[in-house]
């Protein structure tokens, strides 16, 4: 039913996706890490989250270019303020969705 070729592709994709997820967890969680490295790892979430979200908000297209007039960015500003004020994840997600829905209606 399923082509062998397709299965090999999936297995290859699965392997190269799983190993980078697995290696650091298994090895780093056993090591006594130097202090600077723990500090580095502690800063990684803030860095990654910012590196993930900012390009989504202000770039678009293929090849990518800057676009500061996207509803994604417009909605992000009040969503950001709401999150800072309330520090509520549930509230922020709901407010963000609602504002994005509104933006889709009226922009």
């Amino acid at each position, binding site marked *: 039913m399923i082509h062998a070729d397709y299965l090999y592709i999936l297995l290859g994709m699965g392997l190269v996706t799983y190993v980078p997820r697995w290696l650091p967890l298994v090895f780093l969680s056993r090591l006594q890490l130097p202090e600077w490295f723990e500090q580095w790892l502690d800063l990684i979430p803030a860095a990654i989250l910012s590196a993930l979200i*900012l390009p989504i908000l202000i770039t678009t297209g293929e090849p*990518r270019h800057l676009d500061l007039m996207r509803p994604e960015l417009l909605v992000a500003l009040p969503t950001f303020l709401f999150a800072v004020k309330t520090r509520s994840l549930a509230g922020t997600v709901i407010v963000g*969705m609602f504002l994005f829905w509104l933006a889709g209606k009226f922009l």
Partner: protein
Amino acid sequence: MAGISGVSDRTGMDSEAHKTHWMGILKDGVIGAWPICLGYLAIGLAFGVIAQKAGLTPVEIGLMSLLVYAGSSQFIAVSMLSAGAGIIPIVITTFTVNLRHMLMSSSLSIFMRNLGTGRLSLFAYGVTDESFALNSAKFRGGNWDWRRALVLNHTTNLTWIASTVAGGFGGQFIPAGAFGIDYALSAMFICLLIFQLRGRLYVVVAIIAGILAVGLSLLIPGNTYIVIASVIAATLGVVFKRSRLFSREEGQS
């Protein structure tokens, strides 16, 4: 679970029981996963529809979601498949697109000490941008442990698989743009980023990472800009910290 023993202190017993009882763990993990599940529902359906149009059956779609479980690389793989690309280019592209998870697993390893390889292997399967972001915040916030994180990971994984398969039956089910569901993950990332800004140093690192990421994303194709920007920003952060530029408020790590 057993092992609670005859603790006489009532509050102690409650919190201990809450910590290890499987119902509590299941509930915390599943409920905690909801923002990701919303987002995966929308993206998963969209992926299923596209994959079906590219000629994949629901079974083939579900198998990809199960074996690979990484959204953006799945989208890319489908477009490469329909362009007739071979196994090597697809696998190499998948590797580069998903390499960023290595950073995420490294960062999560701080919270995963003293677990066996089996548990770590089960957990590793579910490390995505979204589960990493949410688990990091929850570990920091307390009342969170590897069991709850594992439940959260696999709840989101099941949602992803089910949504992509449902989309593969040709149904968009949710009209495009409905309820603003497409924005669920962006809003979640915005809030989780704020949770991570626990001092001036974190703010500086986030700003550097964001600016670098935007700049690099305009210059280089693909998404390696995420890893490069994060590594440079975090490294600069350590340098700043060690040179005592931000020593006043960052006592704890």
